[in-house]
């Protein structure tokens, strides 16, 4: 069934309109990936109002293009600026930046782009192969099972992804609270609306996501703007040599092998696989003397892992309706905007849409390779946009996206209030992504919990009635308690610089604060 359906998907995705939206998506995605201060999550959030005018296939193809494009663009920034914003790009920056400084920037960008393409294509293929199987397994899933899955996604996003589990949980709590504001869908009662009529519809996802990502980030950057002209390292120099290819292809494949499973797990994310990939390449390399001075393996592996993880995240999203990254959560909101509830039935009820989406990912990957190999100079120009204009522009589009939802200035006031919240969170090291996932997944978790308990007449034991939910909840418990226990036993998790120095992951005993990578 898989191959035929995928071919059907290609037929849908290759229509001129859908190709155009795929191209628009990958161009936008690369641009926002390159630009500091905005990322794919915020861009998709800003474009959510487009779901009112576009048909679902075109809009979702565009969003998927933005998602993939953001991963490609992020590598350009981290190689040429040495100030990575996204945690998943940090490992790429370690060696990539050294390569760029040594005049090998061109080769670093090329191995990142080709590695992203290889990993993206293999991982998308795996997604197409795995998705129907997961759906078959998930079709008998009960409301209680689904609640258990939501719980593990919450726990994973909050505790595994960030470097401080407790602050991740704090951020998740904020998101769950924001998700509660509004009218309870089952009984129609207003909750936490403070008597403000506009809040009875709930706080819009667009407003929350844009506020936390765009406005909060802009305020945070404004509070500590790096003064002076933007320093971009020259990306000239020789392209990848035969030797570079010989040293890159294995890391590409190994990175893919790390990235996809981690992304596909409900405890997904790109941070851990890029860490692992870097540490592995460092161990296996035949050129250990290059590590720390610009080893191409250290760029090829993590970058492949990063992209494979991005594709892996789509597995729980498309088969279970479970978002495990901020961008995935907002794509889920786009599905909901069309009245489509992603879940085990998605592939059967919306088969053509999903397969067109997957096919468009293959096409998008090819487009991205073309956009990123010869045209990299264009993207580098974006890096030099004067920062005052960049952040002013980000706020203009934040205003546009949020105002477009309801045409109500009050939304912009809420946007600023939540933006200040995002600023405070950034300032004190609370990750923002758990809040967005809590906001979107919270109401889904509540509905499933109440459905499960309605069936059982309020008997809480229904939550651990199946083996599936028992195992998942147990894993969630381990993921929740594990980091705290590990911290007690072994101290803090190693920072990327320590991995670079030592070549392996280990925990540190002291609690001192180490700030990273500012050696200019």
């Amino acid at each position, binding site marked *: 069934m898989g191959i035929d359906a995928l071919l059907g998907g290609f037929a849908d995705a290759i229509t001129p309109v859908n190709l155009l939206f795929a191209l628009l998506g990958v161009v936008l995605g690369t641009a926002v990936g390159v630009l*500091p*201060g905005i990322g794919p999550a915020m861009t998709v959030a800003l474009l959510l*109002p487009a779901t*009112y*005018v576009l048909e679902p296939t075109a809009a979702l193809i565009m969003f998927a293009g933005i998602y993939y494009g953001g991963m490609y663009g992020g590598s350009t920034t981290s190689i040429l*600026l040495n*100030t*990575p914003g996204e945690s998943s790009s940090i490992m790429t920056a370690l060696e990539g930046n050294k390569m760029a400084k040594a005049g090998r920037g061109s080769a670093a960008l090329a191995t990142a782009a080709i590695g992203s393409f290889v990993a993206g294509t293999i991982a998308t293929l795996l997604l197409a192969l795995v998705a129907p199987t997961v759906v078959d397994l998930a079709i008998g899933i009960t409301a209680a099972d689904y609640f258990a899955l939501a719980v593990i996604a919450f726990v994973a996003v909050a505790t595994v992804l960030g470097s401080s589990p*407790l602050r991740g*949980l*704090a951020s998740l*709590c904020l998101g*769950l*609270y924001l998700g*509660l504001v509004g009218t*309870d869908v089952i*009984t129609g*009662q207003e*909750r936490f609306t403070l008597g403000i009529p506009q809040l009875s519809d709930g706080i819009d996802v667009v407003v929350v996501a844009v506020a936390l990502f765009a406005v909060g980030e802009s*305020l*945070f950057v*404004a*509070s*500590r*703007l*790096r*003064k002076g002209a933007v320093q971009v390292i020259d990306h000239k120099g020789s392209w990848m040599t035969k030797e570079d290819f010989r040293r890159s292809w294995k890391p590409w494949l190994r990175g893919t092998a790390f990235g996809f499973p981690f992304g596909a797990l409900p405890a997904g994310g790109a941070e851990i696989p890029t860490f692992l990939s870097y540490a592995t390449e460092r161990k296996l390399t035949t050129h250990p003397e290059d590590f720390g001075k610009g080893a191409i393996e250290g760029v090829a592996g993590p970058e492949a892992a990063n992209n494979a993880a991005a594709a892996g995240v789509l597995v729980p999203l498309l088969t279970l309706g479970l978002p495990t990254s901020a961008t995935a959560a907002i794509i889920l909101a786009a599905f909901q905007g069309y009245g489509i509830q992603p879940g085990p039935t998605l592939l059967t009820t919306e088969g053509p849409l999903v397969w067109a989406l997957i096919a468009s990912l293959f096409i998008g990957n090819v487009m991205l390779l073309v956009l990123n190999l010869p045209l990299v100079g264009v993207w580098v120009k974006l890096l030099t946009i004067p*920062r*005052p*204009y960049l*952040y*002013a*522009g980000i*706020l*203009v589009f934040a*205003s*546009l996206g949020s105002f*477009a939802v309801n*045409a109500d200035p009050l939304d*912009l*006031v809420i*946007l*600023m209030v939540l*933006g*200040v919240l995002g600023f*405070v969170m950034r*300032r004190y*090291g609370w990750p923002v992504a758990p809040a967005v996932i809590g906001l979107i997944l919270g109401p889904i978790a509540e509905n499933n*919990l*109440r459905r499960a*308990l*309605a069936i059982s*007449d309020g008997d809480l034991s229904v939550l651990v009635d199946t083996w599936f939910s028992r195992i998942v909840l147990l894993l969630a418990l381990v993921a929740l308690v594990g980091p705290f226990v590990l911290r007690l036993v072994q101290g803090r998790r190693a920072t990327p610089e320590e991995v670079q120095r030592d070549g392996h992951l280990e925990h540190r005993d002291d*609690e001192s*604060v180490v*700030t*990273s*990578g*500012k*050696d200019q």
Partner: protein
Amino acid sequence: MSTRLEEPTTTQRTTGELVLAVLLAALGVYLLVDAGAIAVPGSTNTLGPRFFPYLVGGLTVATGAFLALRVLRGDRAPSDDSEDVDPDAPTDWRAVAVIAVAFLAHALLINVIGWPLAVALMFAAVAWALGAVGIVRPFLIGLAVGCIAWIVFVKALDVALPGGTVLEFVTSWF
């Protein structure tokens, strides 16, 4: 690689983190208290609209309290990296305040002078707060961005966005 063991403003930062954790716990208390005030229709048989808020409230209180405890015992937030952030710079509260006020002002002006002009003024104020040279150039750039975005989103995508008298008149023919 420079390794800094102490931030210059450590005590200030600790206070901030502590306040944030306490505020989170306070939010949790609010959730628990206010959840009790949610009306429960008589027809609700098992789990009403209060259960999940109680759950979230409890989790929030526990997280806030635990976080406050950890901060008191010396746990620091990881330093947050961003491409354009200078971690050693002192906090520029003036820029933050100017941006917040400019944004709120533009929110109120949208329905009066139209979105493109309102965002142009905001753009100029934000760029000025972030250290752009001059004020006319940022305003003109902001106006260009605003007008182009307005034309694309309103004319091509049918988004409802007040354009202001002039722009709506000029573009009324298409």
